[in-house]
């Protein structure tokens, strides 16, 4: 035993008795990465050789990007012991408000000013609903499941109501750039390999997603606030007794998630240049499932940004594979259900094992 204590000094990251490899393989992110690799190989061998190849990959990334904006704050919310069902409603509300504002003010305002205005209005919708969620849960001690179910319906209902049965199409043309602009295009002309690998065609949302992923990782792992998120989700009361402002953590979490959902709506509005109130469907379950597959626990205190990213990749890979393999798309949900079930069962199994292992 005395020897072990010597070891602690020098090799901080080692857990005695377990090899480095075993520890690495015990990590959810590594397990998931292996699953993704095997899945890709199988799909390629099974009749879709271009799956995630140089042509498909950039397209795949731009398909994942809008969800990615939401899955990161959602994972952080889950790690903090909360979750938010209202994101789909928020995203659709922001889409509709953008359409509504454009159709009222087009031509009456400078185009750039109008674009800034609609973006601000969209984000404000996310801010307001996020604040309502956060204040209801922290101040009024309302249950997060029921609260965010209610605000989901309120936001979705408001979206449908404002849209009034029509999607509006008269957008400022350059509003498209929010989703469609390809920032590396010019660089591709100078460096042909970027063009060959289609990297120069990556649209803006991929870069927004990259920024959100980086910020999420930074906050969660490198800042005090990030540790407070983990502490709050791990044991809310215990964290509070140790001086962590748990209500602040929760409030900021809901606001960030709400604004990210609004951002997702803005990207979709720009991509479609139309504003139907049902632009997004199933966003909430998609991102919650992705975060859980990536190792976030619904009970809080566990999970990571990388896990959430890989989890969302997996969800979208299943969808892409279904299409590319020519399988009936109706089965996509069945497969997603099986994957989620497996992930949750695996979690339960490893927790049972950890509990008996001591």
């Amino acid at each position, binding site marked *: *035993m005395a020897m*072990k*204590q010597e070891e*602690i*000094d020098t090799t*901080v*990251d*080692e*857990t*005695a*008795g377990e090899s480095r490899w075993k520890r690495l393989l015990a990590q959810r992110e590594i397990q998931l990465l292996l699953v993704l690799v095997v899945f890709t190989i199988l799909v390629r061998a099974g009749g879709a050789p271009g799956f995630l190849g140089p042509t498909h990959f950039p397209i795949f990334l731009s398909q994942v990007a809008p969800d990615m904006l939401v899955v990161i704050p959602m994972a952080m919310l889950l790690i903090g012991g909360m979750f938010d069902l209202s994101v789909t409603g928020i995203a659709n509300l922001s889409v509709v408000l953008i359409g509504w504002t454009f159709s009222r003010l087009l031509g009456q305002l400078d185009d750039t000013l109008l674009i800034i205005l609609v973006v601000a209005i969209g984000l404000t919708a996310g801010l307001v609903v996020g604040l309502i969620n956060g204040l209801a849960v922290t101040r009024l001690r309302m249950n997060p499941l029921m609260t965010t179910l209610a605000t989901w319906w309120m936001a979705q209902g408001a979206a449908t109501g404002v849209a009034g049965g029509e999607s509006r199409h008269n957008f400022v043309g350059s509003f498209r750039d929010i989703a469609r602009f390809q920032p590396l295009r010019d660089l591709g002309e100078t460096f042909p390999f970027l063009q060959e690998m289609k990297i120069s065609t990556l649209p803006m949302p991929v870069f927004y997603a990259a920024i959100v992923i980086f910020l999420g990782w930074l906050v969660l792992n*490198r*800042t*005090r*606030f*990030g*540790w407070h998120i*983990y*502490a709050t*989700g*791990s*044991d809310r*009361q*215990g*964290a*509070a*007794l*140790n*001086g*962590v402002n748990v209500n602040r953590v929760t409030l900021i979490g809901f606001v960030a998630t709400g604004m990210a959902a609004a951002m997702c709506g803005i990207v979709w509005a720009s991509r479609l240049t139309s504003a139907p109130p049902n632009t997004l469907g199933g966003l909430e379950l998609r991102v919650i499932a992705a975060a859980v597959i990536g190792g976030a*626990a619904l009970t*809080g*205190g*566990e999970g990571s940004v990388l896990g959430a990213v890989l989890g969302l990749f997996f969800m979208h890979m299943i969808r892409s594979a279904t299409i590319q393999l020519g399988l009936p798309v109706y089965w996509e949900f069945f497969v997603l259900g099986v994957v989620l079930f497996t992930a949750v069962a695996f979690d339960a199994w490893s927790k049972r094992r*950890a509990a008996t*292992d*001591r």
Partner: protein
Amino acid sequence: MEQSKVSLQNTSENARSETPLLRARNVSKAFGTVQALSDAEIDVYRGEIVALVGDNGAGKSTLIKVLSGAHRPDAGEIVVRGQPATIHNPNDAFDQGIATVYQDLALLPTRDVVANLYVGRELSKNGILDRRRMTEEANRVVRQLKTNLPSVHTRVRHLSGGQRQAIAIARVVHFGAEILLLDEPTAALGVKEAHEMLTLIEHLKEQDKGIIVVSHNLAHVFRICDRITVLRHGRTVGTLIKDETDSTEVVRMITGADLL
């Protein structure tokens, strides 16, 4: 009769020339219709261990939580080092040099030893964590504890009861608090671990800290404490000097048999 004897002892004690590190008077706290505390009093001096005893539900944990800022009292006065103190949250208590080990330890099961040692007090610069220093310090702290932890990166949920208790104690000791509040620190421990804990508490007393220990175990109480404060139904029924009393008297005060 009994009451007057008790207050006499109180006066003799209060005649000490120094001011107590911590003194609470007339503390009341209700949870809805449950009056958890009414006119509770306690004080502790430097280099002293005061045992806080009472039956289940007497209000011991509630009094500890009022002193640690976890509960706001409805009424009462808290004086720290002679100065009236407002303790509205755990950070206020910490700033006054008060640290607490709660009955349920208040640890984070999914987090490692480092994160648990530093929760709420993380070392950081402009909000960015200094993880290296926290890990180094945690290693130093853990070595002093003489518990066999495989690594400071072990999650607390994988630790034994004794190890968890040790981490919870280490957390309050590490930050150099002068006033320690320990709520049933030996309750969850085996015989050997409990005695190690008592030794540690005695050691802390030698470092001139003022310590309030809640315990059900009168043998433990009589081994380590200097004075015994008895709570009954949320009220302080008296404070006894250990050398002038015995467990029979303490039990009578706890149960209220003297009133019959």
